[in-house]
């Protein structure tokens, strides 16, 4: 297993949390204290990062009363590329991975598919999660619940045993074929 993730090599934890939140929900804006709370990092470092990202044009800020609202800046020249990096490294997939870690030994392969994986999602889209292994449905749902709250989105897991998955592959099941032909974000394990 890798000891460093791509996300960790490129960005600090604070940057990851701030970018993950704001680029993960690009149609919404968040005020400072809300970002600090969700990022669960020090107020000082979060404020510093926000100021730098605004100065660089990655974020826009608007004042409402005495609150400052921050939002991803779609006019930023690398908006698309940055969104892609975040999605593939420390965005949603990373939060789901952290949530699944305690169950990792029961999971052969897990990935996100559907609109979140191919970048067509809007902020209200459910997260479609495939899990292949011998994990218990109830345990999985309970493990995912905190991530679901943090992301503000519903996570819809589909759990197949390895045997079920192999049978569907063999039968060239339409659903499995479709899922495998489209973009995926890997969460845990490797393709079977």
């Amino acid at each position: 297993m890798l000891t460093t993730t791509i996300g960790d090599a490129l960005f600090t934890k604070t940057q990851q949390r701030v970018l993950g939140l704001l680029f993960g929900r690009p149609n919404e804006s968040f005020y400072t204290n809300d970002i600090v709370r969700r990022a669960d990092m020090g107020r000082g470092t979060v404020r510093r990062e926000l100021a730098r990202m605004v100065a660089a044009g990655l974020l826009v800020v608007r004042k409402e009363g005495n609150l400052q609202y921050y939002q991803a800046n779609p006019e930023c020249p690398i908006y698309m590329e940055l969104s892609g990096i975040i999605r593939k490294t420390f965005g949603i997939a990373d939060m789901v991975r952290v949530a699944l870690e305690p169950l990792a030994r029961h999971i052969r392969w897990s990935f996100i598919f559907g609109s979140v994986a191919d970048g067509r999602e809007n902020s209200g889209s459910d997260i479609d999660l495939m899990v292949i292994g011998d994990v218990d449905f109830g345990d999985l749902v309970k493990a995912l619940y905190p991530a679901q709250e943090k992301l503000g989105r519903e996570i819809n897991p589909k759990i197949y045993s390895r045997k079920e998955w192999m049978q569907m592959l063999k039968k060239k099941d339409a659903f499995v074929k479709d899922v495998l032909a489209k973009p995926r974000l890997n969460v845990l394990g490797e393709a079977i």
Partner: protein
Amino acid sequence: MSLENLLGISLEKIDPDVSVIKRLLAAAERNIVDAHVMEISSENRFDVAYKAIMQLANAALQANGYRTLTSKPGHHRTMIQTLGLTIGLDNQTVIVLDALRKQRNVADYSGDIVPASAVSECVNHAESLLHDVNAWLNQNRPELIK
């Protein structure tokens, strides 16, 4: 949140009707038996088990003197999410039941195969909910199931 707070939003007040509650419990029991029929598809086993969960949650709500407002969407969600208030079901179980509700929505609209893991979870939860609702009624509203 209390059931009272949901009045007019998703619930309305009723007088609990013994025959309605008995019918719902009997239907749930029949559906749980059907959920064990291995000759039908996993999808249909899942569906009947889920239906039993809904009937039980509905019976619990009605025994408390409420029912879902027919004019508002999201009855299933309301019935599941009020189980903590109606029979004191623990939050973790409510989370799993709510996830089963979503599984059913997705399967209904996508036609995807319902995995065996979801079927067995749904059947197990229907059975334990039958037990929990009956235990609650016996303890708190025995006159409704005499």
